[in-house]
C-alpha cells in the first residue's frame, strides 16, 4: 500500500507540474516577468476578444516585416471570425498563383485556403530591407523561445530609450531588457495608441503586447484548447479506470494473504 501511495503521489506530482508555467530561465542575463495568461493551466482557453485584437496588432504592425506562413486565412474562423470577415481579410492579400493555361504566373487576391502571405518573397529580400537582420516568421515564435508567451510579452514591453551606462550599443541596435544579450535589431514596435482597436479598448503598449502575444500563442498552438479539453476527459477516465483496476488487483490477491 505504501508503494501504491508513492506511485500515486508521483503521478499527481506530474499532473500539478504540468499545470504550472514553464520555469523562467533566460539566456544571456535577460529577464522577463510572469504574466497571467488565460491559456495557462489545465482549464486554459484563449481569450476571444484578445485574439481578435491581437490579430489586429499583427496585421497593422508586425506584418510589415514578419510572416505568419503556417496559418491559413480559414484558420481565423476557428477563433471567432465569421466566414465573411475571414474572406475579407484574405482578399486584402495578393497571392502569386499559376501557371495559367498560357504558362504565365499571375497575381490574384487571397482566398480562405491560402496561408498568410509573408511580407518578403525570400530571406535575402527580408534582410536587404532590414539592415541585414532577418525578421523571423512568427508562426511558432511562442514555442521556439525559452519563456514562451512571458518572454514575448517582456520583449514587446522591454525597450528602453537608453542603454545602461557603460554598455556599448552597435549601430542600429536597440536596448531591450528581455532579449538575450540586450541588443536587438528590431526597433521598438509598439507605442501608446499606435493603433485604434476596433472594440474601443485603450491601446496601451502593455495591452497591445498582451493581445499580440495571445494571438501568436494561438498561432503556435492552435490545438491547445482541443488538447486541454480532451486531456481532462482522458485523465478523468484513466483515474476512474485505475481505481477500479486497483480494486480488482486487491480482490485477486486477497486469496493469497
Amino acid at each position, binding site marked *: 500500500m505504501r508503494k501504491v501511495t508513492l506511485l500515486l503521489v508521483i503521478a499527481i506530482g506530474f499532473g500539478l507540474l504540468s*499545470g504550472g508555467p514553464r520555469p523562467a530561465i533566460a539566456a544571456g542575463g535577460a529577464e522577463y516577468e510572469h504574466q497571467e495568461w488565460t491559456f495557462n493551466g489545465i482549464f486554459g482557453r484563449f481569450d476571444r476578444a484578445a485574439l481578435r485584437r491581437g490579430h489586429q496588432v499583427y496585421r497593422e504592425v508586425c506584418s510589415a516585416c514578419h510572416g505568419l506562413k503556417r496559418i491559413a486565412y480559414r484558420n481565423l474562423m476557428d477563433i471567432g471570425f465569421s466566414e465573411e470577415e475571414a474572406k475579407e481579410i484574405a482578399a486584402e492579400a495578393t497571392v502569386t498563383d499559376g501557371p495559367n493555361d498560357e504558362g504565365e504566373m499571375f497575381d490574384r487576391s487571397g482566398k480562405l485556403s491560402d496561408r498568410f502571405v509573408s511580407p518578403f518573397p525570400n530571406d535575402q529580400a527580408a534582410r536587404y530591407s532590414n539592415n541585414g537582420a532577418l525578421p523571423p516568421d512568427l508562426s511558432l515564435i511562442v514555442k521556439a523561445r525559452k519563456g514562451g508567451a512571458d518572454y514575448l510579452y517582456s520583449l514587446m514591453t522591454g525597450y528602453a530609450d537608453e542603454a545602461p551606462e557603460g554598455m556599448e550599443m552597435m549601430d542600429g541596435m536597440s536596448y531591450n531588457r528581455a532579449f538575450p544579450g540586450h541588443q536587438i535589431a528590431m526597433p521598438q514596435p509598439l507605442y501608446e495608441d499606435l493603433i485604434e482597436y476596433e472594440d474601443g479598448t485603450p491601446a496601451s503598449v502593455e495591452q497591445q503586447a498582451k493581445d499580440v502575444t495571445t494571438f501568436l500563442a494561438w498561432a503556435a498552438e492552435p490545438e491547445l484548447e482541443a488538447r486541454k479539453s480532451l486531456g481532462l476527459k482522458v485523465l478523468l477516465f484513466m483515474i476512474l479506470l485505475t481505481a477500479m483496476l486497483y480494486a480488482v488487483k486487491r480482490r*485477486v490477491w486477497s486469496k493469497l494473504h
Partner: protein
Amino acid sequence: MISPDKGIGKWIEDRLPIFEFAKHSLVDYPTPRNLNYWWNFGSLAGITLVIMIVTGIVLAMQYTPHVDYAFDSVERVMRDVNYGWLLRYLHMNGATMFFIVVYIHIFRGLYYGSYKSPRELLWWLGVVILLLMMATAFMGYVLPWGQMSFWATTVITNLFSAVPLVGESIVTWLWGGFAVGNPTLNRFYALHYLLPFVIVGVVILHIWALHTVKSNNPLGIDMKGPQDSIPFHPYYTAKDYFGLGVFLIAYMAIVFFAPNFFGEPDNYIPANPMATPPHIVPEWYFLPYYAILRAIPDKLGGVIAMFGSLLILFVLPWLDRSKVRSARFRPIYKQFFWLFLVDCIVLGWVGANPPEGKFVLIGQVATAYYFSHFLIILPLLGLVEKTKPLPESIAAAVTTTGPPKD
C-alpha cells in the same frame, strides 16, 4: 470461443501448439509470489514499445524525409492532420516515458542483483535493448529537422572523427556526404523505422531467457517449490494492469498538459546550418553520458569513456563478486547503490549545463566515481562485505514470519 480440444482449434493446435504455448507462457508461468511494484516496469517497457511503434507508423504516413520538407511536414501533422498533434505528442513524449521506465527497470535490476547467475544472458540482452533504444531515439530526434536536431546530429556524429586514422572517413560515410545533409536525414529515417523491429526481436529473446531462468525477486533467492510461486495470471496480470493505469495517468498528463516540457524550444526553429545555437544539449536521457564525454579533456578518451560507461554493464555480472543477489541482505552495497544513483543524477545535471567553472570538476569527479563503482567498489564488496543471513525460502519469508521491510 475457439478451444484447443475440438473443431478448428484442435486442428490448429495439432499442427502448431499455439494455445499450449500461450497458456504456458502467459497464464501458468510460475512467478515468485513476492514481487513488488518495481517489477511492473518490465511489462510497462514492452507496452511503451508497442505504443511507440503504432504511433510511429501512423506518423510515418504523414512525414517527408527531406531537408526542405521535413520540418514543414511535422508542422502539417500538428496543424492539419486530424489528431496529428496527439499522435506526435504521444510519440515524442513516449520516448521520454520509455527511458524513464527502462531506467527504473535497470536500477531495479541493480538493486536486487538481477544480473547475477543464472541471469547473465538475460541481462546482456537487456543492455543490447538499451543500446538499440538509444540509437533509435537519437535518430528519431533528427527527423523533425529543427535546430537542435541538426546540431545534435552534427556534434554526436562528429565524435567518430576521434577514431585514429579512419575517423574522418567514418564520419563522411555516416553522413553520406561532407556535412549533415539530406542523405543523412534519409538514412536516419530508414534506420529509425527499422531498429524498433530489431528491438522487438531482442525483446522476444529477453523474455525467452526470462522464462527459462524465471524472475528474480526482492529476496534474491531461488524459488524452491510450488509454495514459492504463483501463476502469472491472474495475479501479475491484475497487478500489471493497475501499474499500467498509473503509468498512463502520468504519461497522459504530460502529453495533454505539458507536451513540450522535456523538449528544447530551439527545435521549433527550422534547421539552419549557418547558425549554431548558443547551447547544444542532447535530450535529457543522454545527459549523463554527455557529461562523461566532456569530463575527459581528450576527444578520443572522452568517446571511449562514454561508450565504456555503457559497455561496462556487460561485464557487471563478473565484477560483482558477491554471491548474495538482493541489496536487502547486503547492508554496505545498499548504501553504495544509492550513492551510485545520486552519481548518475549528478552526471545528468552536469550534462545539462555548459562545461565551465564548477561543472568541469564536478563532472570529472562524478565520472571517476561512476567507473570506480563498477571497477573498485563492487569487486571489493564481494570480498569484504558481511551479508545478512538469507531466508530459507520465499514462502517462509513472506507468509509466516512476514517479509523484511526495506
